[in-house]
């Protein structure tokens, strides 16, 4: 069953919490809503759960309208499941009773219900834990109980509200994979709300990035990671080096030049934040997006059209790689992920691995690393 969000807006007094949001989630698809706090994630979730009204647009689940202005199907009649950030387990119910709770409203025999509970327990790998109370479980186990409850009565849609937030890092990594598997096994449509980009990229089939109450960009994980439509999205998804550049020529593709005179092959388009792509034209200035993993440290003597020369300002061991900050004359320092240690102060070259870079013709201002302050409350 398809969740269809059609141009919904929510205005509370003078505050616009959501603005013209459209999104579909296909059956069996996991869509992540990614956004910083205050971007409207919670409001969107409340609208979908039936707690908040909207002022325009509509929400449908299959053929059924769930919410439109002046009309709300109440939560208990929506037939959707939800996994809460704090799990919201009832302290007085055992694991089995908790999972059975959503089934109690259904016309099923006791045996059928118990069968379903057993099924879910095995799905979330909690066989033998049915008689335990929440306080007797670990964090990860609690989360799996919450997932099982959300899935119990075969909901057409599952909402997940920062479900990993209260787990420790290691658990998070395994649970991400588990969660994606479980959701896919149940063939449930899921809307996964998170502020953690890695989570969104790993769990979701598709990611929609929410910013200031509207969807800034949506697409596959790779899409928005590699081809963000503005600087904010690019930074939200991961560290970025911004290299100011100007479009100098147009042949089969765009070509540009940085302040240091390096020539670049540019992908992307001239974009004004929040607007659709416009054709690139020669003479437009903007920034090239270079992620640290797109760069490598090379010998100071190395030559090539995609090499800068500079001096190592700092190097931090990050486990998988070293994070190296290199000072380059006439440029801001760049951050490079490099597999080997380099000594601070040494002269090095920094090579751009890829011939083409993503170009955003934003105003330089909006590129300044800015924490989201204009949050919608």
């Amino acid at each position: 069953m398809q969740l269809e969000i059609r141009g919904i807006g929510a205005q509370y007094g003078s505050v616009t919490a959501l603005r013209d949001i459209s999104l579909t989630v296909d059956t069996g698809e996991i869509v992540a809503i990614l956004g910083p706090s205050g971007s409207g994630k919670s409001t969107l979730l409340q609208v979908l759960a039936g707690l908040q009204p909207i002022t325009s647009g509509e929400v449908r689940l299959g053929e059924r309208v769930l919410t439109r202005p002046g009309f709300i199907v109440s939560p208990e009649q929506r037939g959707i499941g939800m996994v809460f950030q704090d799990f919201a387990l009832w302290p007085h119910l055992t694991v089995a009773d908790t999972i059975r709770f959503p089934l109690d409203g259904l016309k099923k025999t006791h045996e059928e219900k118990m069968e379903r509970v057993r099924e879910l327990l095995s799905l979330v790998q909690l066989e033998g834990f049915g008689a335990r109370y929440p306080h007797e479980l670990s964090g990860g186990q609690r989360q799996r109980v919450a997932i099982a409850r959300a899935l119990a009565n075969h909901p057409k849609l599952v909402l997940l509200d920062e479900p990993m937030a209260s787990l420790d890092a290691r658990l998070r990594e395994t649970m991400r994979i588990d969660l994606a598997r479980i959701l896919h096994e149940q063939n449930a449509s899921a809307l996964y709300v998170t502020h953690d980009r890695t989570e969104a990229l790993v769990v979701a089939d598709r990611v929609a990035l929410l910013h200031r109450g509207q969807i800034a960009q949506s697409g596959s994980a790779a899409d928005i990671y590699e081809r963000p439509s503005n600087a904010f999205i690019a930074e939200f998804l991961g560290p970025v080096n911004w290299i100011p550049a100007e479009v100098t020529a147009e042949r089969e593709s765009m070509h540009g030049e940085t302040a240091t005179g390096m020539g670049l092959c540019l992908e992307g388009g001239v974009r004004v934040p929040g607007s659709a792509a416009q054709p690139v034209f020669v003479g437009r200035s903007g920034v090239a997006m270079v992620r640290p993993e797109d760069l490598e440290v090379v010998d100071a003597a190395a030559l090539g059209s995609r090499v800068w020369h500079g001096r190592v300002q700092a190097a931090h061991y990050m486990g998988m790689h070293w994070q190296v900050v290199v000072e380059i004359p006439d440029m801001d320092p760049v951050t490079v992920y490099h597999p080997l240690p380099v000594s601070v102060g040494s002269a090095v070259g920094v090579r751009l691995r890829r011939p083409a870079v993503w170009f955003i013709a934003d105003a330089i201002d909006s590129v300044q690393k800015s924490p989201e302050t204009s949050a919608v409350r």
Partner: protein
Amino acid sequence: MLSASDQRPVAGEQSSARRPSRFSGLGFRSVNGLAAILVLVLIVLPMLALLIQAFWPNVFSVTPNWQFSLEGFASIFGSPYTFRAVFDSFGLAIFTAIVATIMGGGVAFLLEWVTIPGQGFFNGFLWLVLLSPSFLIGDGWQFLIGPSGVFGTGALGHLLLSPLGVAMVLALKLFPYATVAISGPLRGIGQDLFYAARLSGASSFRAFRRVVLPLLIPAAAAGALIVLAEVLSDYGVASTLAQSANFPLMTYSIYAAMSIFPVDFAQAAAMSVILVALVSISQWVERRVVAKRGYVTRVAGSKSLAKQPTRHPWLWVILLSLLFVVALLLPASGIVLESVEKSLTGIQGGFHVTFAYYRGLIHANYALGGLVRSLIYAVAAATIGLGAGIVVSIAWWRQGGWLVSALKVLMTTTIAIPGIVLGAGYIFFWNQPFFSNVGLNVYGTPVILMLGYLGGSLPYAVRVASGSMVQIPPNAIFAARLSGAGLTRIIRKVFVPMMRDTWFRVWLIIFAGVVFELPVSQLLYPPGGPTLAVSIAHQTVNNANVQIGAALTVVSSLVISLIVMTFVVIQRRGQRAPAAEGTAGSAGL
């Protein structure tokens, strides 16, 4: 985390938009309506019927008129005695509240913070003290070392019959309210908070003083407020000890104003208005104190602290035992002695044990029948009162608005209104010719007594029930709704089990309060159906059969203690899982 309360929808351009309440589609609207009716009919209207007479004294006279007058207030401040009573009462209430909160906090510390032997036993005792009626304590002390007591009025007697003595007796009776209020949050203090302080170099003592104590301020303030209201409305001790100590108190003055003829309702009403004002002011001060900072006692997900070992457990056990002996066993033994003592002379003339008064109970009018009736009333009032309290708290659950706040304040302040005033208010209201004209004759029937009991206990039930309900995480309810549960199933499957322990306590307190209730009963009991306290009063006052009254008190106390203990045992047995932690919380219970 979902919290709908942050974002209140405001009707925008879509004027047709149904403004969905938080509980749209759950039938909460009818709950709201029912709650409003309960509060209005049980408390607000009867109260107004009496309080209005502080300003319009003649609205319910034989020849009614709407002549505005402040003569009630004038008579209070014009008479040195009543004037003093106002100040004495307030001073006594504040002093007692402080002493009782310190005592209660100490007991909470010993019961919840450290490990000492017999904590379960002491906990039970705490409840016995909480549930015992104050006139029993006052009478017991009076019989032992009062002006007419069996032991001489030595230094102890003089102390007892002083304002300090009155305060001590009241504090000994009321400290469990503070203990119960503080215990929940103390039990719930997160270990992180405490260990963070220890790791910052604080000794265990300093960590307790600097971190734990400040976090308990709201709970202590809530407990103190309840003690204060209880002292202001107490009649049991005011009419026994305080009276003998020549220590005028407001409740007693109110009783006196209503005892002389013609009855001075204007003064009684004015006095009640002052009582309500005093409690409101105190409540305002409490809110100010509590509102200053956050008092989250536990960071989400963090475990609560295990009990700490202590160096001298037996010292504490002895101290606690002494406290309970003084608070309950001594005064109770006074009543027991009174009931088996043959003559009025007491021990000085040689102690002559007789059980004649117990045998006398069987044949006496106004004896065991009252006990049976009161037990029925108490069970019914506790059950319905709890139900009504729950309905009102659900309706008010996380709801704001000036009306709800005003009603909340009003409800708390009614705790301080003495029963005799409440009772008169019920007569004024329910005995209106209007009601008999429409065939609603509740006055003179058991129904009005029930209404009176409910009106007296509802504020308490609501305060505790709503206080504990705040601690239900909203998502726990929301998760149930998304699981397809409607209002009834949510109440049955989520509210009730999570609140079970708190509600059980509320039930017990209403039960014990009603079973020994005197002032409301005297005014409202249906002719021919005396209650327990009315029967005891009949024996001790009108009939001057003090010993039969004492025997009746002893028998009743035993029966009631037995019932309470049975219920507690049953409840403990039924306890499979921990309910929501710290549910009693800062709610005041």
